[in-house]
């Protein structure tokens, strides 16, 4: 961002402190407490959002952010505490009540019907929407005024994720909100789209609409927000001006300790190809799902290859085609250590040395109501855990116990049900389980999503050790910082197509951002002897 918005933001900051002294906050929470079985999600949380202020709610996954915003939006009722709306004590009974008060919320997951147009979608959730035609006019007007280009007559299935988010924002703005809650809005956007969103949000702030901005991305918060409330373990641990903090100091408030640094050793040098993907195409079952088109990719022994991309661009389908959950028609499209296996299923691919950490932990990576020991058996049954068709219970308990220890999985022993673990602990268990199988090829989907920083370091270190042992590792992630930190080579997936693969260090975050919007054809042409050209030659 240039200087100009900073200036306005600085003056806004001045206003905020001014208001804080004399005026009433738009929203104030006092001592909000919410107890869930086994976890105190919110422990006496107080915070205040000034009129026109952009207030950050910062915290790791599991810190209690979601519960708190659900309370503000009337989805969840607090056990104790008080909400003041423009100074008045208020009980917010339902989301509809929240909207009537002037609270709008843009969720991380959108509530849109694919088969309806933008205007139809907006009219559905809105009281007093009026007829579609005048609504469409108002949608166009709002979208122009705030720099959120959308066409009210377009069907939602044809929209990109960024455009869908704009629909949700416009839907909120139509109600003239006094407070807009944004839950992790940038996780689905390219860096360029993020910049545009910030211009819109700052404009809204300058017009007097308060914004509660939820994120764990520190740079964004430093750029956008006037105040920040930092949550950890359900409690407020700090209230600060993010501009006066460094990303490091913010991170330390969020985590509560120093952040360890992991060093990527890139001296090893990649060996023979272990996972080869050639002209991989896949039709989607879902009429609006992403179709994979002509993906070419080679992952070699001793390297980590990262695939960036905005969520919903074919990552899920690509990983399923590689794991065997969605076999492909062309058997030669996927090769493991030179053996064609496009048509065979997950179990057969695993016996060729593949291991996989899926995106969904509970229900896919682990069976919720089974013990950790039995969940070790889920993928480990080939490795001496079964003799003559019978399960060796001492062995599975032993294996699960070792994973638990090595990855510091917090659970009530190996007999604890998978669903009783927190997301981060279960993720550590699943990653440990898969790495413990000593795979030749490891596929990882969002390896550190929702995991605290200490655990992320453990996971990254284990990935580095596996890499050193000669395995080929493929990571799909939305977290660019993570990819730049641990990968040797990078590519981007957009609209089901894969960009050329480049060495880490030979591409900037801006270029990756451009690729994430699907614009990598020009780059592919310019690159000499890239994977794209080899494919074209066929």
């Amino acid at each position, binding site marked *: 961002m240039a200087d100009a918005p900073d200036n306005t933001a600085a003056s806004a900051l001045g206003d905020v402190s001014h208001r804080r002294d004399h005026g009433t906050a738009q929203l104030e929470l*006092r001592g909000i407490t919410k107890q869930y079985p086994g976890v105190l999600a919110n422990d006496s949380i107080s915070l205040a959002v000034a009129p026109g202020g952009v207030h950050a709610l910062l915290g790791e996954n599991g810190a209690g952010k979601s519960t708190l915003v659900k309370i503000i939006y009337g989805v969840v009722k607090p056990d104790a505490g008080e909400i003041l709306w423009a100074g008045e004590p208020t009980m917010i009974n339902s989301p509809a009540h929240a909207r009537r008060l002037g609270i709008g919320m843009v969720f991380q997951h959108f509530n849109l019907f694919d088969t309806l147009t933008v205007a139809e979608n907006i009219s559905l959730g809105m009281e007093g929407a009026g007829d579609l035609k005048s609504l469409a006019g108002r949608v166009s007007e709002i979208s122009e005024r705030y720099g959120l280009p959308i066409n009210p007559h377009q069907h939602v299935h044809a929209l990109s994720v960024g455009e869908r988010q704009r629909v949700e924002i416009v839907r909120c703005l139509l109600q003239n909100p006094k407070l807009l809650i944004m839950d992790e809005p940038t996780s689905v956007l390219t860096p360029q789209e993020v910049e545009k969103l910030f211009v819109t949000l700052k404009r809204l702030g300058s017009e007097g609409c308060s914004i509660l901005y939820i994120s764990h991305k520190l740079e964004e918060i430093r750029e956008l927000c006037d105040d920040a409330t930092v949550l950890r373990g359900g409690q407020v641990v700090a209230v600060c001006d993010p501009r006066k903090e460094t990303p490091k100091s913010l991170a330390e408030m969020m985590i509560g300790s120093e952040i360890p640094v992991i060093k990527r050793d890139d001296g090893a040098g990649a060996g023979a190809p272990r996972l080869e993907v050639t002209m991989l195409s896949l039709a989607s079952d879902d009429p609006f799902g992403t179709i994979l088109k002509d993906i070419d990719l080679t992952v070699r022994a001793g390297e980590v290859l990262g695939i960036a991309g905005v969520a919903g661009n074919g990552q899920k389908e690509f990983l399923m085609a590689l794991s065997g959950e969605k076999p492909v028609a062309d058997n030669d499209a996927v090769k493991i250590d030179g053996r064609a296996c496009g048509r065979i299923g*997950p*179990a057969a691919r695993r016996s060729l040395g593949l291991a996989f950490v899926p995106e969904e932990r509970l229900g*896919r990576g*682990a*069976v919720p109501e089974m013990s950790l020991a039995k969940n070790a058996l889920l993928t480990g049954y080939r490795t001496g855990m079964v003799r003559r*068709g019978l*399960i060796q219970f001492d062995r599975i308990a032993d294996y699960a116990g070792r994973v638990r220890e090595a990855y510091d999985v917090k659970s009530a022993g190996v007999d*604890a049900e998978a669903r009783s673990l927190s997301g981060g602990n279960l993720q550590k268990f699943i990653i440990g389980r898969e790495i413990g199988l000593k795979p030749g090829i490891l596929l990882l989907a969002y390896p550190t999503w929702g995991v605290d920083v200490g655990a992320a370091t453990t996971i990254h270190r284990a990935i580095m050790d596996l890499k050193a042992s000669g395995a080929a590792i493929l990571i799909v992630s939305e977290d660019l910082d993570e990819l730049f930190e641990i990968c040797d080579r990078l590519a981007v997936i957009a609209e089901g197509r894969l960009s050329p693969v480049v060495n880490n260090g030979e591409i900037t975050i801006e270029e990756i951002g451009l690729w994430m919007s699907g614009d990598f054809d020009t780059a592919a042409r310019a690159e000499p002897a890239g994977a794209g050209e080899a494919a074209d030659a066929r």
Partner: protein
Amino acid sequence: MRVKLEPRVASSQWMRYGGPVMALAATVIVGAILFAALGKNPANGIYAFFIAPVTTLPGVADLLVKATPLVICAIGLSIGFRGNVWNIGAEGQLIVGAVCGGAMALAFYPDDGWYVLSFMVLAGMAGGMAWAAIPAFLRSRFNVNEILTSLMLTYVAIELWKYMITGPLLDPGGSSFPQSREFPPGTLFGVIFESARTSVLFAVAVILAGWLFMTRALQGFKVDVVGQAIQAAHYAGFSQRRVVWLSFLVAGGAAGLAGLIEITGPIKQLPLKFTPGYGFVAIIVAFVGRLHPVGMTIAALLMALMFLGGDELQFELNLPPAIAGMFQGLLLFFVLASEVLIRFRIRVIRSARRTAPEASQAGAGE
């Protein structure tokens, strides 16, 4: 004050096993109330229903005779229920098994060498499997809901039964009364005591095999994974189609065996009507027994006792025979209701809200 169900952090093991016991207690209490409402002494009613039938040796033998087909059917079905395959047509599979086994005996008639009974056992199981293969095929090939197909095929099986005993298998020496001729003695299971026969050993074998499969075998684990988390099964590469086929074939084979045991034990021929709904009651047995072999064994004995108790009430207290079915239904109802307590606990909340002045004082320091 209000009462609230609250999710538990971990499933309660105590409720998993204590639940059915509580359900049985609730059944007895409601039963007692019912007896009182009918103008009978509740204590007499409960005694006649639950205790009197097993106070004599013939009574114990009858209990085993009735429990044998129930437990065999239930264990066969439970594999499917664990794997989310809903075969509720065991009754039909049992009938077809009995027809096939009976036809085998009649085909060899009057030969009754030891091998005839072996062929009958195989034919009974094969018949049940074949009948179960129809919904298995429809489900795995065309994704047709197996609840409907397996249930409806039961009524087809009943018609098939009627056709066979009035047509091809009709007793040639009889007065065209719809039933087959009696099987020769060598084709029946041997008597152990009173009405109990060696076929009880099949029940023991099925219980042991079921226990081994469900608690120790990798294949049983795969069934559980498919049943509990289908995405995890896809992820691990466990085939759902295989579980569908396995479930139906095992359940069909078990039901067919149960049907054969019934006609080669107490009945000795293919009569007009021979099953008091074993295939349906086995579903209750499976759930009351928590889909666990030990639980199902206990549940099968309990259900068998209720059949006998129903007869007893009819003789002793002049109550309609439907009372047995009612008790069975009550027990299933309470067991299913108790299931919620495994994952939830009941909490009584006395006062939910803090008063406003208190809250504002707490916030006043800011």
